[in-house]
């Protein structure tokens, strides 16, 4: 046992390195800003970047991650030259350093996953850095790839776990590529080997990776554009195919690949394993205080119990009240440990906005507000994708080009604001821009085309805004803009709904749009209404309940097809008998003796028939899938007061299941 097991420190190294990379990126963006508006703090920024690279290199060498150490070594040498003013940190250099940061993020992810660390991107970047170090002049004088005749592109496309989940479809992207030239599939690689057993098969996990060739004189921008929406959700390398007949030697392919390679690994921080969490010492101290209280209360109660007589009843009740208070505070403190500032998500946007500005030729000022707003770690991990989508949308479709803005009498630079705040038990995140807003004409035209509204129908602002959340509704409005790129707002809404939240939009044509996402503070606890069905208990989430009422037998009508409906606030709603859906024995079947709980299932209202309401309480959600499997109509389970298990109703699922029963 003489040697120390270094693997125990790996997690800390990953966490700290990712943090260092974030810091490096921040400093690079500030530096870039400084190049445009010179200031005095540039040397300090370069130092910060150097220190980040240096500490990653040191760690990587210590743990024997040689590829990573070698890469960071050349980067460090280059940074050292910049630091000592032997090399200028111009915009081109900053772009290269940003790419290096992305590349290191990818390498870290692969190190953690235990897969080969060096790849095409890292090797070509390293070679490029080495060449620059050896002979600065030669590197600068190397011919630009874009000047060479383009025979086509070789595309390595490997989807990551989230690609399909965010609503992207490789097939659609391939179809779009094929519009530019002849698309040839060179190789199809199976990602999950050995093939998972059917029970473990996840239909939303990508199974295949592709190597494609696209032949023709095509602009790199166009090829990149096809993959724009899956950035971060895939590993992508785009290499130039030179026209062999022109006698081109393929040696230029390597350096150009570095430029073409997409940015890996940003999303990879949200990996699926348990991960770790950094907690402020204050929160831990609060927890220790609370546990101390609990121990004191316990010993006090124990004392009362040992020598109990009726005259001590008052003290017992007092003690129990104290126990309840302490337990609740303890619960709060524990939940607070999982709460992290939303800055962790917001921090990725300066870079994203910068890249989109460059690519789309727009001028954007990003304003971040309420970064210190704390949200649960699970919410934090899942809010990123919808936000990225909204930000991309805002810059791509919302904000106008500088020329168009000036023509509309607006300042040249558009404003994109991200704001987070707490609002009675919820987290509200707003993405707003002062761009063109939703353009009513094209949206209505598209809705008519899709058969969502009839021609000539009168719609107000809100109804028009709702249209963009319909499935298959593309937000592209220009004829030149290729349709079918990316995903619709319906996916954003669905993802947010899966988190128990909602997303809405306010828009004024010509003045901008505001997208508002409302999410629960935590995914771990919900308010639920416990209901009895037969001898069983089912918990209905309070957020989906509209009202509960008792019906008279004659107010229920049977409609053709076997369904039942009842009258509620000027509407006829379907009645779903929960005991039928869940197959509960001994439940109340007479409508007038049960209770109908009216719920909102994704915009549709239905009534759920239960025997009785038992009570309302906060419940901690437990997964059924952890040890068993997903059950339709059940979103999870919780531990009831008696120590038994109570099931939580998935309202959408129940409505779906009952619709299917009726159809069958």
């Amino acid at each position, binding site marked *: 046992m003489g040697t120390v097991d270094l693997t125990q420190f790996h997690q800390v190294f990953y966490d700290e390195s990712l943090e260092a990379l974030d810091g490096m990126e921040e400093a690079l963006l500030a530096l870039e800003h400084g190049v445009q508006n010179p200031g005095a703090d540039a040397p300090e920024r370069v130092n910060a970047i150097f220190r980040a690279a240096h500490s990653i290199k040191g760690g990587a060498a210590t743990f024997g991650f040689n590829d990573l150490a070698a890469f960071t070594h050349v980067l460090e040498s280059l940074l050292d030259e910049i630091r000592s003013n032997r090399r200028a940190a111009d915009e081109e250099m900053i772009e290269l350093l940003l790419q290096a940061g992305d590349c290191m993020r990818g390498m870290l992810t692969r190190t953690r996953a235990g897969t080969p660390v060096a790849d095409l991107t890292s090797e070509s970047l390293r070679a490029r850095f080495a060449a620059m170090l050896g002979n600065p002049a030669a590197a600068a004088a190397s011919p630009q790839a874009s000047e060479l005749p383009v025979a086509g592109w070789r595309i390595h496309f490997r989807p990551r776990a989230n690609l399909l989940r965010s609503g992207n479809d490789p097939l659609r992207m391939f179809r779009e590529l094929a519009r530019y030239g002849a698309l040839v599939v060179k*190789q199809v690689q199976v990602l999950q080997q050995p093939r998972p057993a059917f029970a473990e098969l996840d239909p939303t996990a990508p199974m295949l990776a592709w190597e494609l060739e696209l032949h023709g004189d095509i602009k790199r921008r166009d090829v990149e554009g096809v993959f724009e929406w899956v950035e971060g959700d895939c590993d992508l390398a785009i290499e130039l195919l030179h026209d062999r007949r022109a006698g081109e030697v393929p040696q230029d392919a390597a350096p150009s690949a570095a430029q073409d390679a997409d940015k890996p690994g940003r999303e990879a921080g949200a990996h699926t394993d348990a991960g770790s969490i950094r907690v402020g010492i204050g929160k831990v101290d609060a927890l220790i205080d609370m546990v101390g209280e609990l121990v004191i209360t316990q010993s006090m109660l124990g004392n009362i119990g040992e020598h109990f007589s009726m005259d001590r009843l008052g003290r017992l009740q007092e003690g129990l009240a104290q126990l309840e208070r302490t337990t609740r505070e303890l619960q709060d403190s524990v939940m607070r440990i999982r709460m992290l500032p939303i800055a962790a998500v917001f921090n990725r946007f300066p870079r994203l906005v910068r890249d989109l500005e460059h690519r789309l030729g727009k001028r954007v000022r990003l304003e971040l507000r309420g970064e210190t707003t704390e949200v649960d770690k699970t919410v934090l991990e899942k809010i990123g994708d919808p936000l990225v989508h909204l930000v991309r949308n805002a810059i791509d479709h919302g904000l106008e080009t500088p020329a168009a803005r000036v023509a509309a009498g607006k300042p040249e630079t558009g404003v994109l604001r991200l704001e987070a705040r707490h609002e009675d038990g919820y987290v509200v995140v707003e993405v707003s821009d002062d761009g063109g807003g939703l353009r009513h004409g094209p949206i209505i035209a598209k809705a008519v085309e899709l058969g969502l509204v009839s021609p000539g129908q009168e719609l107000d602002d809100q109804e028009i805004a709702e249209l963009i959340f319909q499935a298959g509704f593309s937000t592209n409005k220009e004829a030149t803009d290729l349709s079918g790129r990316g995903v619709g707002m319906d996916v954003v809404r669905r993802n947010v709904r899966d988190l128990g939240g909602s997303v809405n939009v306010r828009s004024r044509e010509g003045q901008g749009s505001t997208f508002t996402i409302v999410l629960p503070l935590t995914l771990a606890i919900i308010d639920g209404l416990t209901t009895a069905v037969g001898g069983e208990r089912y918990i209905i989430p309070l957020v989906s309940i509209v009202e509960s009422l008792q019906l008279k037998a004659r107010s229920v009508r049977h409609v053709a097809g076997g369904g039942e409906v009842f009258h509620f606030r000027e509407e006829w709603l379907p009645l779903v008998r929960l005991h039928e859906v869940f197959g509960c024995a001994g439940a109340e079947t007479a409508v007038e003796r049960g209770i109908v709980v009216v719920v909102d299932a994704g915009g549709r209202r239905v009534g759920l028939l239960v025997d009785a309401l038992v009570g309302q309480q906060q419940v901690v959600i437990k997964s059924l899938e952890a*040890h068993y499997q997903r059950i339709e109509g059940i979103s999870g389970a919780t531990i009831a007061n008696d120590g038994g298990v109570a099931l939580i109703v998935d309202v959408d699922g129940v409505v779906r299941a009952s619709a299917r029963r009726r159809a069958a």
Partner: protein
Amino acid sequence: MAQPPSRGNRPVPKSEPEAGKLVQQLTFILAGEEYGIDILSVREIRAWSKLTRIPQTPAYVLGVLNLRGAIVPVIDLRLRFGLPREGYDSNTVTVVAAVGNRLFGVVADSVADVFNAYEDRIKPVPDLGAVVDTRFLKGLAGDGERMIMLLDLERLMRPEEAEALDAAMPEIADVAVAA
């Protein structure tokens, strides 16, 4: 009853000539027959207690129980093997076992013994006809007249449809496409 059997309380006979790897089995009785599961996968033995039924599951999935905050499914082995279930009494036990990271409980008539099985002496399962579903057996162990059927827990937990679909799905491999 609630204590898991300790692995240390039974001396392991080391003197056995050319004995194979030892796989200790926790054995239990089901309809008069003795079954065994690998003792290393056993987490807990509990007295029978009321469960929460789960809708839309096969009858042999009795429901879920709360195991210190984890929601664990419980299977009735009698129902799983198509044997009649008369009722649950004070001898009825739930053996909580783990396969990988997943926990589940199996209900048996009573717990019997800890049996030292040696890998090289475990015999393959003969065709027992329709009496017992031999799909879930890994092998037979025992000495003399005694026969212990060793259960394949992994298979037991897998949904039946998945089994059929697995068999129907061919293996897949990388494909190079000629240009």
